């Protein structure tokens, strides 16, 4: 039986009287790229905030690997293996690239104060391991030569890639990407496209994607969910979505 990695049922988020998300369902299997699309203000990012624990959903259930995670603290959810990026790049910009990668592995390190003060063997081993993991992922996103640069001095495309690498180094099982292609040039978008596919095929993780770049979404998604004004509109394979009259209506308006 193929157990669902993420199973979201009737997710609802209300801000006072405003219903931002209304009864959204999502299903993600292992090694799948799933996209959420919809017009601006449809509530896509709100869904992300609910899944990653930044908001506590008003209603509905979020099962991650069969476990209820709705209402858990954000850092607990990310420790379970569900890690997100942000619509606007959020790096530790005055720290070096390699340090950004090390901070992300904070919980894998030996944070016992005494062993750090005495530089015990286990402390050094864990520090070395996290360094190796950081190097590995910097190599994967072509940033190894920038390791000692300040993160804030990287180009926008590089910052985007570093953000993904920083998530990957925490060893997640599900990666939530919030508009990763926003602000990238066509060349960088193509690289990103390849990177996401590689994450699924080689590193065997699942990706949940919010994106406006339709060629990217249609090209790599295994399944697509469409949300309009907080309510689910349609879902299906890229081909089904392309030909769905409701979706076309929502995006282009009625004839």
């Amino acid at each position: 039986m193929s157990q669902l990695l993420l199973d979201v049922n009737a997710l609802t988020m209300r801000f006072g009287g405003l219903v931002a998300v209304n009864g959204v369902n999502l299903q993600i299997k292992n090694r799948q790229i799933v996209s959420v699309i919809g017009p601006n203000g449809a509530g896509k990012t709100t869904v992300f905030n609910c899944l990653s624990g930044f908001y506590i959903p008003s209603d509905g259930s979020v099962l991650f690997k069969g476990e209820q995670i709705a209402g858990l603290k954000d850092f607990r959810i990310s420790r379970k293996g569900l890690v997100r990026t942000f619509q606007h790049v959020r790096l530790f910009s005055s720290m070096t690239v390699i340090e950004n990668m090390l901070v992300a592995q904070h919980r894998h390190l030996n944070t016992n104060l005494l062993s750090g003060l005495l530089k015990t063997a286990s402390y050094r081993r864990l520090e070395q391991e996290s360094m190796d993991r950081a190097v590995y992922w910097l190599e994967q996103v072509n940033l190894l030569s920038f390791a000692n640069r300040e993160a804030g001095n990287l180009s926008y495309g590089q910052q985007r890639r570093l953000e993904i690498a920083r998530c990957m180094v925490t060893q997640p099982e599900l990666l939530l990407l919030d508009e990763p292609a926003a602000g990238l040039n066509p060349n960088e978008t193509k690289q990103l496209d390849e990177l996401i596919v590689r994450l699924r095929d080689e590193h065997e993780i699942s990706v949940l994607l919010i994106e406006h770049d339709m060629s990217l979404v249609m090209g790599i998604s295994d399944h697509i969910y469409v949300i309009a004004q907080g309510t689910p509109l349609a879902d299906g394979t890229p081909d089904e979505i392309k030909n769905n009259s409701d979706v076309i209506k929502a995006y282009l308006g009625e004839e």
Partner: protein
Amino acid sequence: MMRRNFYTAFFAAGITLVLTCLMVGVKLTSEGTELRVVGATATQWTWIFSGIAIVFLSQLFRDQISAATAGIPRPSLDKILPAESVRSRLKPWLIAAAIVGLIIWPFMVSRGAVDLATLTLIYIMLGLGLNIVVGLAGLLDLGYVAFYAIGAYTYALLSNYFGLSFWICLPIAAIMAAIFGFLLGFPVLRLRGDYLAIVTLGFGEIIRILLNNWTSITGGPNGISGIEKPTLFGLEFNRRASEGGTTFHDFMGIDYSSSYKVIFLYLIAVVLVLAVLYVINRLMRMPVGRAWEALREDEIACRSLGLNRTVIKLSAFTIGASTAGFAGCFFAARQGFISPESFIFIESAIILAIVVLGGMGSQLGVILAAIVMTILPELAREFQEYRMLLFGLLMVLMMRWRPQGLLPSKRPHMELK
């Protein structure tokens, strides 16, 4: 242009007039039982008006002045200091030389100088502790002196009621301060910036008022006196040994001198400061040091990466508090007398000024600033009532000349080899 400068010059001169007239121009003198207001003498008035004239003219012609001084090169640290590679090779030697110097020095100078140096070392300890909280973790703490007070009172009370020695109380004082840091930190660390500052400010006052009013235990405003001095493996530094004790000079077979005690206290302070420096230096290179900086930069990103912000902030707060506890315990032992008067808000402000003057986050800067802040008021003693005026002038000049602090430096960054 000239016209605009004229207005500012006029305004600046007016402010100078009001301030100098209030501070220098009028004086209160007591005659018998009553106070009388006395005006300044003719020479003082000449000085006041020439000062005002200087302010007026320098403001009026400030464009010309700044154009003239633009050619003068600004002092740059990078040019004076040797290259990075040379510096890193010299570093262990310099540190060794500094430590040896610190140990030999007190035997060559006067008692007063050693005493002042001990006071400076206490402020260095406090500055280093607050630097963790403010400089590294970015949490503005205006009630830092409370932890200092807790450390001091822990030792004073334990010594008074239970007769515990300084060396046993030193870790206890640090732990007590850390516990209070934890208790305060737990509810308030979700606050940010100004709000945190206000709550910590309140906490500082609560502790002081508590000490002031809990007369049955703390002695209230009368304080606690006769606190025992530290001993060296049981050897006392008094003229006469207490019951069953031995004095240092008897043990060594030398004559009694009161300066032994002063030098001994100084050496304890040196050891404490070195220990604190070592620990903080390690902390900054450890994961927790990185996490402090990351949390200061972007809290939301930290949360999304699985960092528990409460734990990380609490660790900064607690470690900072325990450093103050150390300093407080030593302070109580050195003074032999403490009262709530020693732990007023202005102390918090001075410690914060040390951190800011030094350049947030920089250890060497904090040490330099602590030296400046404690020694300068002493040197300026001969200026009597103008002492604080000079102090203020220094602060203003500092903010004008180096707003980033004396030696702004970052946490040592990890590099990939």
